[in-house]
């Protein structure tokens, strides 16, 4: 058995003249909860649909649970579950029927788990599909996916439309899935959710992965923001790895590369700086720097 649940290499997918995936490369080891982030239209859903064998890649390779997602689709699908980003139920089937139809088509679902999930998500399974709100439709899709025992969960913005309480329930369930060594690919825009659940994240933009790693690793790739009161600036401006040095009302602020931190801190001490603050990049800044497509990519690193 492969140690990677998902292996994608140089994946290209075009829709007419639009390039949706532009040489995407990404690996998700078995048992990892992998955050999949990126602005709208970056190619997250397209990647997941290629992994499901719904879309055929133009070039590149993708492997899923050791198999070919296009050729072995139906067999691989017994071992995975999927929650689409925009859930639309059959208008004349009840939520409970939809859960069973999807679960049975996958090869069966765990009745006890189904009952537990309905209880925890507080879903009325007797309502007809057209009568559910967006959040409740989402719950139906989540229960249908989570009620089977599978090795891999492909979740495309699974909590959109859920209230905070239900978001927490979802998080708790993912935490317990992780304990059972289930691999999860979680596309999301909710940073707190990603921070809480994901071991590892990949940030995708315009069809390629621009950064991947643990959240700590990603933080290290980014500059720390410092501010201090000091009289002699020359000692700082001579150091490499110091950027955007500005003094306003006697307060000096600047950014420092992660590997420039030891000399910077030493220099600050020598210069007799007071009121020193150092702020590591917040997750939000980290993501925003990647999400803002107006900023040329070169300026980000």
């Amino acid at each position, binding site marked *: 058995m492969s140690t990677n649940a998902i292996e994608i290499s140089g994946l290209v997918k075009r829709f007419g003249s639009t390039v949706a995936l532009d040489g995407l490369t990404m690996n998700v080891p078995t048992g990892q909860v992998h955050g999949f982030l990126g602005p709208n239209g970056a190619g997250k859903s397209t990647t997941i649909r290629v992994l499901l064998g*719904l879309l055929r890649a133009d070039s590149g390779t993708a492997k899923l649970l050791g198999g070919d997602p296009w050729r072995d689709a*139906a067999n691989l699908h017994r071992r*995975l579950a999927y929650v689409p980003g925009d859930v639309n139920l059959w208008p004349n089937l009840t939520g*409970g029927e939809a859960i*069973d139809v999807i679960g*049975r*088509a*996958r090869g069966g679902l765990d009745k006890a788990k189904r009952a537990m999930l309905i209880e925890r998500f507080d879903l009325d399974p007797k309502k007809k599909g*057209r009568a559910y709100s967006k959040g409740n439709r989402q719950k139906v899709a989540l229960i249908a996916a989570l009620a089977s025992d599978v090795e891999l969960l492909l979740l495309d913005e699974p909590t959109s439309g859920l209230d905070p309480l239900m978001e927490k329930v979802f998080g708790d369930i993912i935490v317990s899935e992780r304990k059972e060594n289930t691999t999860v690919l979680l596309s999301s825009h909710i940073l707190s959710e990603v921070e809480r659940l994901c071991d590892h994240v990949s940030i995708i933009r315009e069809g390629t992965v621009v950064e991947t790693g643990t959240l700590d690793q990603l933080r290290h790739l980014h500059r720390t923001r410092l501010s201090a009161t000091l009289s002699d600036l020359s000692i700082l401006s001579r150091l490499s790895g110091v950027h955007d040095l500005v003094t306003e009302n006697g307060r000096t602020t600047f950014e420092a590369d992660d590997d420039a931190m030891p000399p910077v801190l030493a220099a600050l001490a020598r210069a007799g700086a007071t009121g020193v603050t150092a702020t590591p990049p917040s997750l939000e800044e980290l993501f925003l720097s990647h999400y803002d497509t107006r900023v040329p990519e070169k300026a980000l690193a």
Partner: protein
Amino acid sequence: MTGFGAAFRLAYRRSRMFYLWWVLSLSVILPMTVTKYHDLVPEGQSGQLVLAQLSGNPTMRAMLGPAFDLSNPGGFTFWRVGTFIAAAVGMMAALGVIRATRAEEEEGRVELVRAGAVSAAAPLAAGIALGLLACLVLGLASGAMMIAATPGVAGAAATGLGLALTGAVFVGVGAVFAQVFPSARTARVWSLGIVLGGLYLARAMVDAPVSTPTLDAWRWAMPLDWAALARPYASERWWVFLLPLGLTAILVALAFWLESLRDVGAGLRAASSGVATASPSLSGAVGLSWRLVRVSVIGWTIGIVISAIGMGALSTTVDSAFTDQPQILDMLRKLGGGTDVIRNAFFQAMLGIMATIVTIAGIMLLSRLRSEETDGHSEVMLSTATTRWRYALSLLVPAVLLPVVLLVATGALLPVLQSQQDGSPTVIGTVTKAALVLTPGIVLVLGFAMLLLGWRPRWYGLVWVVLGWSILVSWILALWNPPDWLLKLQPWGYLPHLPSDPMRWGAFSIELALGLGMVAVGLLGYRRRDIAGR
């Protein structure tokens, strides 16, 4: 009414092409028919005989409605195509008003509109007003073309008015059903399948037999006959138009009243709840597809069985229809046949119509494969252990089987009453065989539909063009004496029409193979193409 203007402009913007195509294609049929009058009806006595034969033929009356004065081009034209166009205008009107009201509401767009400064009834009023306007334009266009094509302004005015007002009635029908049901699909089924289809059948049953006072009275209850009953080009009876006017007013008022009773997005009945777990049969692609289509399968079956028996009852009137037409009986005898020639022609004509109608059932079932995809349901089912082929076949098999079975059943049911009259079942065998021989046409159309689904799913609408063409060729184009190959260039054109044609196994097997081949190629395309999400 606050916001009516905005709602109307929105409805106009979204439906103008829809109405434009309908109005253009329907309004040219009348003047085109006029131009053929003198070719069809020669001067003098032979012309009289042709007219007597046409108007005395129960098949023709069932298809076309009552005849009044066929001795002038306008009157003949209205009889030949007027009632048919009136029914088509009704179809346009009901589809148009549902598309502007319930379909938009189902997609959640009415909610956006009503969040603005728009009163609750404005979207419905806009849809109705636009539908009525389209009927008016169609009536004016048809009237103007008839003034240009034939002498007699009154006849042209009655023609235009008759078509417009028949359409108006169905604006009302569509508007009412759009309030009753939460789904546009169901509203369309009721407006067209049950009301329009049922009224056309009822009209055929009333119009076909030799007229009696009872039948004449019943005719007034047939909205699709009202335009003809106003007698365009046959000393017009203007007061008849009060009937569609009054019915339209009642239906529109009913629609507004129903609208005021319900919530946005809801039907008239509060959404009922169902079961918490699926029954064992609701399992896998096959169980799901059966659940999705079973209501339409049952509905179509009931409708076709009733139609076949009803139409079949007309065949027994063939004899009496000609007893008062010695000229025609004489002519038939000279041609070496009796009334059974006419009766066979009747069965053939009915089978031809029914073949087209049951194919509509197949196309609509198969269109589920497309709508399930655009609704995002295919994506979910195809990310389970369901293979593409199994998924496609779960809808393709019923879509082919249903029309084939229904056509053969029609063949068996049409002659039931005749065989009782004959005291012999022979005729049942003959007509059933004739129906079986027409089934490759169904397979061909559905093969084309599957081909589109496999390779160019966005062009699925083309299959309706094929079917529309076949209707146009056999109902209207036939008047032009077009070259034989053009007349045959439709799904049932090359197939032998038993019992008057000899059986041609070649045509039968080639067309069947062609249809099945397209099914196979379509399935291959479906296996290898991208599945769209929502």
